[in-house]
């Protein structure tokens, strides 16, 4: 295509370039853009620092962070946040000792039971009902539990979809297709409102857990597809080579396919997980007091009526911060994994 009429393309390009970059017009455009952006920034800053009233944020920080978690027990979520923060730090900046690298994954997996134990109590801690869980704590808990459960399920589904056994392959494709065809909000509604109807009498699943289950079901289907993409990127001769070395199916999967597939799929999986973190805000319309839910309740406090803009700007920056951290960690991981690959 490019070779058919190179002159036409170049000529029109030069014309446009001339028009846009002629000195006077260029300066004029620059000036207009400059004025508009300065006035926008100025208005925004005057609003932020003068016209807005940040009391709705500052005086409710505890609510945003912990919901209605009992005040004398709030060191527990704080401790959990701290453990998450430190393991993130170790992952990104930690020394390259071998034992750390090998056990980091268990550290990450361990943060989830630790968080549940710290929030739920028992075994020496005062038990706290899940209805008191809320705010950022709940958002992070739902996200991390869903990640922990959906990753192995996703890997399993991806392997099943490539399986040579007809039934297994069809079942897992069916599951993945159905989950991707249903909107997330429908899955969440199903989890929150319909699961209790189907459960036998006496058996009750807590609504926080129902949310985590619904998210896990949904996200694992997407992760399965991401990982399948990673699996497909591995050349077939690797499998053949492994077979000729005498490895069996499981060994091939565990030592050769999955590690490489995960490495390839990492950016796509990060995408899903960031999406998952933001999608937890949907739980606010299902009555969970996570970050957005607790904010909407704060806005109904007569003291703070009408301060929507402040609250939503604050929420946006909190979500931005956490998504940025997630993206950053994934980028660092990617770099480390590429280095280890040895080329």
């Amino acid at each position, binding site marked *: 295509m490019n070779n058919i009429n190179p002159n036409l393309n170049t000529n029109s390009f030069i014309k446009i370039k001339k028009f846009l970059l002629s000195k006077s017009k260029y300066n004029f455009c620059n000036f207009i853009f400059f004025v508009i952006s300065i006035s926008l920034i100025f208005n925004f800053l005057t609003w932020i620092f003068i016209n807005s009233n940040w009391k709705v944020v500052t005086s409710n920080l505890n609510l945003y962070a912990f*919901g209605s978690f009992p005040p004398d027990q709030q060191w527990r979520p704080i401790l959990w946040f701290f453990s998450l923060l430190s393991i993130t730090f170790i992952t990104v900046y930690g020394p390259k000792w071998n034992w750390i690298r090998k056990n980091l994954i268990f550290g990450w997996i361990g943060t989830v039971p630790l968080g549940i134990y710290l929030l739920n109590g028992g075994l020496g801690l005062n038990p706290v009902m899940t209805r008191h869980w809320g705010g950022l704590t709940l958002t992070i808990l739902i996200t991390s539990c869903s990640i922990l459960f959906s990753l192995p399920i996703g890997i399993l589904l991806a392997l099943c979809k490539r399986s040579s056994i007809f039934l297994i392959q069809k079942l897992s494709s069916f599951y993945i297709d159905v989950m991707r065809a249903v909107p997330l909000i429908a899955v969440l509604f199903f989890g929150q*409102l319909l699961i209790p109807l189907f459960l036998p009498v006496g058996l009750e699943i807590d609504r926080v857990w129902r949310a985590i289950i619904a998210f896990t079901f949904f996200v694992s289907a997407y992760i399965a597809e991401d990982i399948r993409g990673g699996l497909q990127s591995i050349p077939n001769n690797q499998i053949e080579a492994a077979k000729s070395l005498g490895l069996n199916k499981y060994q091939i999967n565990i030592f050769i396919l999955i590690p490489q597939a995960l490495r390839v799929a990492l950016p796509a999986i990060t995408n899903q997980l960031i999406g998952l973190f933001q999608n937890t805000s949907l739980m606010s319309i299902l009555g969970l007091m996570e970050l957005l839910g*607790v904010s*909407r*309740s*704060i806005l*109904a*406090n*007569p003291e703070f009526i009408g301060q929507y803009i402040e609250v939503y700007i604050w929420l946006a920056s909190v979500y931005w911060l956490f998504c940025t951290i997630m993206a950053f960690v994934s980028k660092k991981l990617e770099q480390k994994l590429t280095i280890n690959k040895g080329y």
Partner: protein
Amino acid sequence: MINRLFFGLAAFGILVTGCASNQNENISRLSLIQKRDELICGVSGKIPGFSFIERDGSYKGLDVDICKAFAAAIIGDSEKIQFRPLTAAERFLAIKTGDIDLLSRNTTLTLSRDSFGGNGLTFAPVVFHDGQGLMVKKNSGIVSIQELANKSICVGSGTTTEQNINDTFESLSLPYIPIKYQDLNQVVAGYLQGRCQAMTSDRSQLAAVRSGFKKAKDHIILDDVLSKEPLAPASDGSEQKLADAMRWTVYALITAEELGITQSNIADKVQLAKNNPQLKSLRRFLGVDGGLGEKIGLRNDFVINVIKATGNYGEIYDRNLGRDSDVPIPRGLNEIYSKGGLHISPPFN
């Protein structure tokens, strides 16, 4: 061999009878609450003056106080409540699935919600008579709906609100220009930017919204009421005992206001009733004699617990929606009948 068979059969039998007894154990919701020693109360959590979250994480508002009254009546302690924030979409299903015991979440009592062919609920007496209203700027000089002819009105689209205002203006043969928005916040923004001369919504919401305005005094809510929105607590229609307990708890709040019994003078009134056998109706009401509470599955002195916990209806109203509260709404229809309102209680006999 025979031994094993026998044990297998026995185990199976135990399992079956266990299941059967589990299903036959038809414990009423009221005794379930008392056994659990905690009331699970569905609220909105997002409506100023009715239910919202305080800085310390506790719930407050008129709907919340009604929950507290129920807990005081049923359990005897107004603090033993679990509040469950619910959205409009899930509130009825939450009752059906037994997720919550009762609903105190400004829900309009309608035929289809009350009937067994509809949502299958049972409603306690109305605790707040709401209605659709109109808000205008004070300096516009508009004081009645007639003067809104040919004026533009901001309204949320696709709601009963939109339907109601259309019906009203049509029945009055008044022309008007509706300006439609997606939700209440946009309606408010449009109204404040001067795109319309008036805005319409439920009167309680208008009052709540207005209390957030910078100059709340510059806006008035017209006296015209365009629709009936009686808000009432609800419970599962098949649980008559719970419904009775709720009904008479609300009536107790209203009767207490009628009799001038308040949170502060309840102890004196009880003493008065105990010392004066001739005050028959007061003695029955406070459970000194008559045994009325037992008939609805509560303690005979449940009224005392309720009033001690929340005060009478007037006190609850003043605390949350009264003149000095953050969301002042004139009592109007919500006065007791002797003062020209709609709240009336059948006799405690």
